[in-house]
């Protein structure tokens, strides 16, 4: 991959800069979502996969647990936000 040099960066016009900033913003939000998914998977795996591993698939109990874990975590998140909002009043 060729290196970016400062001259090439300096040659960017305002329009290109704007486009790149927008692109970076959208990549940033995608990266944040991905990072959350890593954390949720990690957290829910620890809660849900407690038996010895004998298969490369999640069984029904485990996959239900993973889904419930995620959904209830997000519910809890919303509830905490509401509690904080209420506490501020």
């Amino acid at each position, binding site marked *: 991959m060729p290196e*970016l040099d400062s001259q090439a960066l300096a*040659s960017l016009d305002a329009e290109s800069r704007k486009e790149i900033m927008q692109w970076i913003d959208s*990549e940033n939000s*995608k990266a944040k979502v991905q990072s959350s998914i*890593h954390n949720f998977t990690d957290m829910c*795996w620890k809660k849900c996969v407690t038996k010895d*591993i*004998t298969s*490369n698939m999640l069984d029904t109990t485990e996959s239900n647990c*993973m889904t419930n874990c995620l959904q209830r975590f997000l519910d809890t998140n919303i509830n905490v936000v509401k509690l904080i909002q209420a506490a501020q009043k």
Partner: protein
Amino acid sequence: MAFGLFGGSSNTDSDKTASPVPVAPLSTSTLGANAAQAKKLIQEQISQELAIANATELVQKITENCFQNCVKNPGSTIDAAQKKCTEQCFEKYMHGWNLVSRAYITRIQQSKYDI
């Protein structure tokens, strides 16, 4: 400024020679090409860094969790059962990741429409 704005379809060869100005102010077409090239490079580099960060994170999480699940009593070596367990754990974790990913993205999209 007036020439070479429209995609450089007509006089590609004369563009370079026609400009009487030596180096300093780049002609519009050259600037356009440089900017497009720079933009592409920036995007490629950032994409690659993000992909590496994502892969690193995944390796980290899978190693931690599968080590926890599969290597309960670390001995002088990884035995066959632990290796097999790690292989299964790896695939299983990926399935879990995909499951969480799909459910989370669906929920984000739903809440977007709710608001």
